[in-house]
């Protein structure tokens, strides 16, 4: 029996040795990060609009800010020499910021939303609690290329106002505000609102409202080029993004002519079957190529307006131009988007900047959809996973995908190996 015991000891020894040698979990070669050539990621700043700020569900709130695509990029850049990245976060106490929409219920497949009104960050009506700390995420909802040079915009835009000192309000333009900071690398995604402000207003410039101006190509070219020139002084590098088509976002593709017609026919017992819209060449019947906004107040259809019956249902009382982008305007807007994107690409190439082609990517999301590790992503409202409840801004999943689009562009342009974001960590629209 003694010999047997010795044998057992030998075998136990072999077993414990092999356990130690291999531990239990297998080892996989780790990812080799690299900053690539001639790029310094130590101080990354993000310049842009609501998308850069993390605006979502019709509001700016802490959870959205935390998953804004520049914040996700900054986290990955830490693998390649990136430093701290501060954002003008709302406090935990005021985490719901401006307030935002949430899905209350789905009734017969129709979303019913409600506005979050607790834990807001207003110091008085229309003014948000100021943020005074250091900033690297300079995203300002509503920021445009043309208005970036207007010092008075700080007094009109509460998201910008909250970042400025009292002395700077109405005195400092966004351009001056962000180009006086130190940076070694930047992302720049402006220009969307130079199109969107006009498009969301039904391709209608409201007199006295500069946010609905349809920025001209000349204004855009000068403004965009001037901004990039300043940011790239001393050979600084960065990444810029193109502007998506308006038809790529559910804000313009969810309320369709067919859906409106079906609704009208059902609610009038078949008495009315068409929708009439105002166009530059007079009233006409709406077609599938005309786009309605998600914010279109469908309950006004058929009501009496300006003393005339059947609003939107007869040529005598067509829908106001503000609520529809007719097909000629769609073409006009697409042409302007393309012209802007041409400018963006030219400027970026002349300055050796990476280009995240959000225009091409979101068109792909719209036409074929994108599948990511079992998540199906499309431009469909709510269930498409990419767009939040406002139909314009991104969900956390959408932000993660866009962050990866930027990282891909950086890696390609600068021969870098910045690791990608794991999109499955992020959510789509929350269901009740």
């Amino acid at each position, binding site marked *: 029996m003694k010999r047997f015991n010795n044998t057992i000891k030998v075998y136990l020894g072999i077993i414990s040795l092999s356990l130690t040698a291999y531990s239990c979990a297998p080892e*996989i070669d780790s990812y080799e990060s690299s900053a690539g050539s001639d790029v310094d990621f130590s101080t990354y700043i993000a310049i842009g609009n609501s998308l850069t700020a993390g605006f979502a569900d019709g509001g700016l709130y802490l959870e959205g800010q935390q998953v804004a695509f520049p914040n996700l990029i900054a986290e990955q850049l830490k693998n390649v020499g990136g430093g701290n990245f501060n954002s003008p976060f709302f406090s935990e106490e005021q985490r719901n910021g401006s307030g935002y929409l949430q899905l209350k219920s789905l009734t017969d497949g129709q979303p019913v939303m409600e506005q979050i009104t607790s834990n807001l960050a207003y110091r008085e009506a229309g003014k948000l609690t100021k943020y005074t700390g250091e900033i690297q995420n300079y995203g300002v909802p509503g920021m445009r290329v043309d208005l970036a040079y207007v010092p008075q915009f700080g007094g009109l835009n509460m998201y910008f106002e909250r970042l400025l000192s009292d002395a700077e309000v109405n005195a400092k333009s966004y351009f001056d505000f962000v180009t006086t900071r130190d940076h070694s690398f930047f992302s720049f995604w402006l220009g969307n609102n130079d199109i969107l402000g006009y498009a969301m207003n039904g391709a209608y410039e409201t007199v006295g409202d500069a946010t609905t101006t349809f920025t001209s190509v000349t204004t855009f070219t000068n403004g965009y080029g001037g901004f990039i020139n300043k940011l790239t002084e001393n050979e600084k590098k960065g990444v810029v993004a193109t502007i998506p088509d308006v038809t790529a976002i559910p804000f313009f593709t969810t309320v369709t002519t067919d859906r409106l017609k079906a609704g009208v026919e059902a609610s009038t017992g078949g008495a009315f079957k068409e929708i009439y819209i105002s166009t530059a060449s007079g009233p006409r019947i709406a077609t599938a190529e005309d786009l309605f906004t998600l914010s279109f107040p469908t309950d006004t259809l058929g009501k009496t307006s300006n003393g005339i019956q059947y609003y939107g249902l007869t040529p005598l009382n067509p829908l106001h131009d503000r609520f529809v982008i007719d097909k000629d305007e769609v073409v006009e807007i697409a042409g302007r988007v393309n012209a802007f994107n041409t400018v963006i690409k030219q400027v970026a190439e002349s300055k050796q900047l990476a280009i995240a082609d959000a225009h091409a990517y979101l068109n792909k999301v719209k036409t074929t959809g994108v599948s990511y590790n079992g*998540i199906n992503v499309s431009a469909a409202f709510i269930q498409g996973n990419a767009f939040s409840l406002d139909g314009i801004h991104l969900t956390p999943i959408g932000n993660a995908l866009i962050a990866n689009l930027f990282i891909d562009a950086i890696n390609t342009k600068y021969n870098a190996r910045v690791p990608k974001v794991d999109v499955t960590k992020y*959510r789509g629209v929350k269901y009740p």
Partner: protein
Amino acid sequence: MKKLLLSLLLASPSLLFAQGSQVNTQSQKAVGMAGAGSALFIDEASIFYSPGALSKMDGNGISVGASAVMYRSAFREYNSTEIHDTKFKITPPFSVFATFGPKNSWWKAGIGVYTPFGGSVDWGTDWPGKYELNHLQMRAIYIQPTLSFKLTENFGIGGGFVYNVGLVDLSRSLPVSMADGSSGQANLSGTGTGTGYNIGIHYHLENNVALSLSYRSKVITKLKDGDAEFSVPSSLAASFPNTTFNAELPLPASFNFGISFPASTKVDIAADATFIGYDIYKSLDFDYADNTPVLQDTHQEKKYENAFSGKVGINYRTCEDLTLRAGVGYVFSPVRGPYVSPETPDNNRVMASAGFTYLLSDKWDLTAAYVFQQMQARTVTNKASGLSGTYKTNIHAPGISLTYKW
């Protein structure tokens, strides 16, 4: 009037008894030789390894054995720094073999209860493949009554009927967000049964070289009325009704050739080659009792190839009481790259083993063995989900068995 019918697509769940789940631990003697020895060992475990050899047993025996299979996989998504490990799980495959019949007779009967397929893998709910799999537990228990006949002193033939009970329990995350931001989850569990057979011949040459041929048939296991339960936000509950499902799991056939020969009076060498008919695993289809626009029956391609394994081992009788063993083996994976999935992130694997048998008395034997298997790192992109990255897997399987002879 905003009619927005929801249509969330549910990808098909993945589920199979695959190569990665096949751990042959039926006899600890064979485990000690990395799976070789079907021709060498003539004992009650021949019910599984070589039914033709069973009739060559002089007396009768009953053996009870179990292994502790520790299956650890790691995954790194392509272009990511994060490495995800499966949680530590021990699967205990067991086997019981017993023989009946007169001593030194021309026939022998036996029964075996064993688990040729089984495994447990738990990736958790926080990894890049969570929409493919959270956890999977499965086991196939084969019950095999067997008869074996000695046609000549050297030539034995045998066969058995196989009744299989299969158990499956798996979960995966669903890409819908609950109010707290977490993902939904689908849980599928069920049991099924199937039948098959195991036949073989065993031949001794005059110079003590032994040959074994055996064929284990495929066993199509039909899961009927398994439970499908979904944890989803209440507003989507109507789209994901808790329901039942039917599915088929094809467990592959295998054809085994074994040879053994004495290298000296104390040393035997054995080698086994096994062809496994995995090409029956073409697709996985799920049929849900209740379908909704979201919850559709699913069809998933698998397109497995036939697989092969080769094992060689050495058996050294040190003295009357103690026999030592060691072996090595190589297994070719049946899974093509685009169909590799987290349930069994398969690849070709190498095996090394060691073991011993100690005669406690005339009646009692104690056998123990340890096999280590390593699957080579494999970088794949799954065709269905697009999950892209590198898998690597280690399997440790210590085991022990006790035999009583009379």
